[in-house]
């Protein structure tokens, strides 16, 4: 069965790892009460991870626009192929929407993002106390949507591997 290219496989797993790290860090840092140096450090790291995911997501989209995904096995039902495409589309949207919403949330809070502590990124919106709580909510719920989508994505992959035994998962394994 045809596999994804090395570039696509690398991007998939790198983005997956960074998203897991950013997600875990996001939950950890927001649970630290008050104001501590560790909390501030985690906020910065979280933003750096998010910006990295956004950059890699751009590369990933470029790859996808210039390459076709390997075909599904012929015995895979039409509705499942449709569902897989829809879920992949949602994941693509989220890996862009989540970092962007977090980035805007930080700017609305009046805190610019300085990538890795050295590269100041563009301040595209002014501090905005009205927009801030809204962006926080959007960032949070997009992440919860991502959590649900990733669970479905993983369950589907496991079903292909252990129930259908059709080699779909092997297309993306390193």
């Amino acid at each position, binding site marked *: 069965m045809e596999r994804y290219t090395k570039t696509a496989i690398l991007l998939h797993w790198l983005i997956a790892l960074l998203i897991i790290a950013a997600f875990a860090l996001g939950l950890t840092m927001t649970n630290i009460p*008050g*104001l*501590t*140096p560790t909390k*501030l*450090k985690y906020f*910065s790291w979280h933003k750096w991870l998010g910006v990295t995911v956004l950059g890699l997501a751009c590369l990933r989209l470029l790859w996808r626009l210039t390459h076709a995904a390997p075909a599904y096995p012929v015995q895979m039902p039409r509705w499942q192929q449709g569902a897989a495409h829809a879920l992949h589309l949602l994941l693509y949207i989220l890996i862009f929407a989540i970092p962007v919403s977090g980035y805007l949330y930080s700017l609305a*809070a*009046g*805190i*610019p*993002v*300085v990538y890795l*502590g*050295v590269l100041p990124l563009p301040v595209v919106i002014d*501090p905005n*106390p009205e927009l*801030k709580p809204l962006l926080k909510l959007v960032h949070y719920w997009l992440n919860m949507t991502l959590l649900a989508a990733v669970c479905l994505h993983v369950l589907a992959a496991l079903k292909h591997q252990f129930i259908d035994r059709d080699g779909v998962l092997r297309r993306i394994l390193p």
Partner: protein
Amino acid sequence: MTLRTTFLQAIIGGVAAIGLVASAVAAPLKVDAAKSTVGAVFKQLNVPVEAKFKKFAAQIDFDSAKPDAAKASVDIDIASFDLGEAEYNKEVLKKEWFNAAQFPKASFVASSIKPTAGAPAGTKYDVTGKLTIKGKTADVHFPLTVKKEGSGLTFDGALPIKRLAFNIGEGEWKDTGMVADEVTIKFHVVTTP
């Protein structure tokens, strides 16, 4: 009669003259609090963060014709420091930061205001004075820019300070790798005649 009139005129003239001199020397400008701001910019992991003091009182007695006689002082209400997040605003009033319970006010008193050499008259001044935060006083000097805006004046300046010199950020916050020692206090004061 003629003599008395002249005498009276002289007195009236004299009083008026004193009044004029007095108004030129000691006429504090009216500060437009709604348009004026005092804030601080600090760097946290190289990220510039600006926070404002929402309550402060500035007294400025300034006549560009007599800068030597100018007086300026600012009293800042520490509890009004606004980082844009209620939770953080509460944190910075604690002992390690401003210790607002013991030191509720910060103040600046100018000791001299001199025209900057080479700058067009009435636009730039060198200010020296004493800055007190958290019970510690330090001599500071900074450039001041004065502009005419409408019928009033605007006073702008930025003064760099070292936060640790004022004990701001004690304990684990002493680490300047997290929050830099260099902090810039910025002010924009608008006055109306």
